[in-house]
């Protein structure tokens, strides 16, 4: 009986495959009859299609603005924006690529997602594209193939930092901590005054790797990522264990029954002023404000253990744009990608999505978002689990999440977590040989 349902799901997938294959045929029409969007009506129009999983109304508005700005530098290009529902995007894209009916410019899932497409030879390398140099190596790594070539232009960033309730801090006479110890003192003070220091819950695994991503770099140190990739450091190395112990050490500052709380509860507790701080993604801010429009939220980066250290926020590239290898408009598509490296574009993205742009030097009026954007440019460290652990089946990222959950339920020690995660990593990871 279950198999029946299950096979139905398989069939549903198959149907999606067929339907999307049918619906994606006329991508590369260069039409000269299209109405001119800008003043220069004489130029021959080139239609460049863009596909993405960001399917909201605001996205359509954003593309109108992008079109306008783009035509100031490339008047001939007309963008055709084709959004696909996020949950169906991967399937529909893989079918479109196989049937040679995919869009010219493709929104690429970050890290392992891009690597898979690049390795399957669906993407055009864009090394040497003008403007690529504005990105950091960590950001560019989100859109590379196993061959080390660049296949995409990073689109926007997500950032995890510590958000705090300004009113609660003021009422308790607290200031933004500059070191980890100061932050623990702040937490102690809040606890003394009967305010839960951190909104936290371990019921949903993804929340755990998100928060680990934010605080861990202060414990495993700046050179860990490189050592890890070279195979010189493992996930059960002492420095990584320290980062897990740090997660465990915050336990006394979490709400009662935190093992039963999920992101919704975390959001509610922070928004309703029951807690002073939360380690959280920038993408939660809008939801928190929707619950309580009057809340005054401040942010600070995760403070360093050592007073001389550098505070950090954890960022990751949330998608890139790359070029379909079989596109008939590669030159025009490259021009669009070039535009995607400019400050004009970065500023459009920042203001429209309220997410930090990887392009340095852009700003927005929203004070909180702007602060996060500025720290993303100067104090960013990669979100470890998404950047390096998102492969394997099941992924090592989900192994980390489950093991952390086990730790908070007292089923595993921090060392046990490290062993589990390393075991999962061993099933697929190969260090870069130098």
């Amino acid at each position, binding site marked *: *009986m*279950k198999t029946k349902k*299950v096979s139905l799901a*398989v069939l549903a997938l198959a149907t999606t495959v067929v339907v999307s294959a049918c619906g994606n045929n006329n991508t590369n029409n260069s039409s000269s009859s299209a109405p001119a969007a800008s003043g220069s009506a004489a130029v021959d129009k080139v239609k460049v299609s863009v596909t993405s999983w960001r399917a909201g109304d605001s996205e359509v508005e954003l593309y109108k603005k992008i079109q306008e700005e783009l035509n100031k530098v490339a008047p001939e290009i007309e963008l055709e924006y084709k959004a696909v529902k996020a949950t169906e995007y991967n399937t529909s894209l893989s079918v479109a690529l196989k049937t040679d009916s995919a869009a010219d410019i493709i929104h690429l899932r970050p890290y392992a997602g891009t690597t898979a497409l690049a390795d399957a030879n669906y993407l055009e390398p864009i090394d040497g594209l003008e403007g690529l140099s504005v990105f950091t190596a960590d950001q560019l790594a989100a859109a590379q193939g196993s061959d080390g070539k660049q296949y995409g232009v990073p689109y926007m960033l997500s950032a995890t930092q510590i958000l705090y309730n300004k009113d609660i801090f003021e009422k308790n006479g607290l200031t933004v901590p500059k070191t980890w110890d100061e932050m623990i003192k702040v937490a102690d003070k809040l606890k003394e005054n009967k305010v839960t220091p951190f909104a936290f819950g371990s*019921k949903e*695994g993804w929340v755990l790797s998100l928060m680990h991503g934010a605080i861990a770099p202060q414990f495993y140190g700046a050179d860990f990522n490189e050592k890890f990739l070279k195979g010189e450091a493992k996930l059960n190395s002492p420095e990584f264990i320290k980062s897990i112990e740090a997660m465990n050490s915050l336990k006394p500052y979490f709400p009662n029954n935190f*093992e039963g709380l999920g992101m919704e509860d975390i959001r509610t507790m922070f928004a309703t002023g029951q807690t002073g701080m939360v380690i959280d993604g920038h993408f939660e801010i809008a939801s928190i404000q929707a619950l309580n429009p009057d809340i005054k939220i401040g942010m600070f980066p995760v403070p360093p253990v050592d007073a001389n250290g550098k505070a950090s926020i954890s960022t990751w590239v949330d998608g890139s744009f790359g070029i379909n290898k079989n596109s008939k408009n590669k030159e025009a598509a490259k021009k669009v990608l070039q535009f995607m490296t400019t400050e004009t574009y970065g500023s459009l993205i920042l203001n429209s999505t309220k997410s930090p742009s990887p392009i340095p030097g852009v700003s927005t009026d929203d004070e909180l978002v702007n602060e996060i954007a500025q720290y993303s440019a100067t104090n960013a460290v990669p979100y470890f689990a998404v950047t390096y652990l998102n492969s394997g*089946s*099941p992924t090592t990222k*989900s192994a980390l999440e489950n093991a952390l959950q086990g730790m908070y339920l007292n089923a595993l020690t921090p060392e046990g977590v490290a062993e589990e995660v390393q075991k999962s990593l061993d099933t697929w990871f190969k260090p870069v040989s130098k």
Partner: protein
Amino acid sequence: MENANNARLIRKKSSWRKQLIHLIPIPAVAIYSIFVVYPILAAFTYSLFEWNGMTMGEFNNFDNFITLFTKEPFNTMFWNALGHNIYYFVVEMVVQNGIAFGLAYIIFKKIKGTGFLKVAYFLPRLLSIIVVGFLWKMILNPNMGILNVFLEKVGLGSYALAWLGNPDTALTAVVLINSWFAIGFFMLLFLAGLQSISSEVLEAAKLDGAVGFRLVRSVILPMMFQPLVIVVVMTFIQAFEAFELVFAMQGSMGEPYYSTDLLAVFFYRTAFGGNAGDSGALGIGSALAVVMFVIIATISALFMSYVNKKDSA
């Protein structure tokens, strides 16, 4: 002559029409084939191939099955989930069907207000199971849920646990909620069984002095053998295809720490990728689907053949 010809013509026409009747099931057969037969066969085929994301690779014999049963973490997850399915079945048999029988018996005895009670007990079954999951998630919320608030108000604060966040209580909580949801349906099955017993037999048993528990044990239950088996089989299938409630309340990872993982949840996560953004392993997922199909089909068939043997004996 004319008449005879006409009659033959009519007969001919009607026999042609009679043949037409065989076409009537075609739509049903077509739909059944597309949505039932084909997916089952497809799952069987998929389970024998290698998969790279959504792309079918090479034929690889029984590698997916071997991976499922020998490789970490799949093998641990499989036995863990299977154990939970068995627990699901046992608790449902005892709690859900025990209560359902009791309720059916009360209604059968025609106490006052049976009409109302019948509807009331059946009511949860009319809710979408996703709604049920959401509702109970709110009731069981550790800090804001009505259950823990109530426990604290009556001085039992130390019993106010994180019901769904604690591995010791999460699975039991989910099974009990599923029982609450399904009691009405099984009560109706029992009621139909009770009503099929002829009143003469009951009358005679009573005259012979069988009352109360004795009547239930020695007369009613043996006479309800067939409906009882149907209940067992349906409970078994319900327990082994359970998915929605865990998915709605505990997510696709069977959280916390795989303590509410079930075969179907494990299948979903493996085949289509969990919420962590896995790309999914369709081959191993299909192998698991085949294993589940075999388990459910074999055990159901064993039950049914046992009944048939008992019936013909």
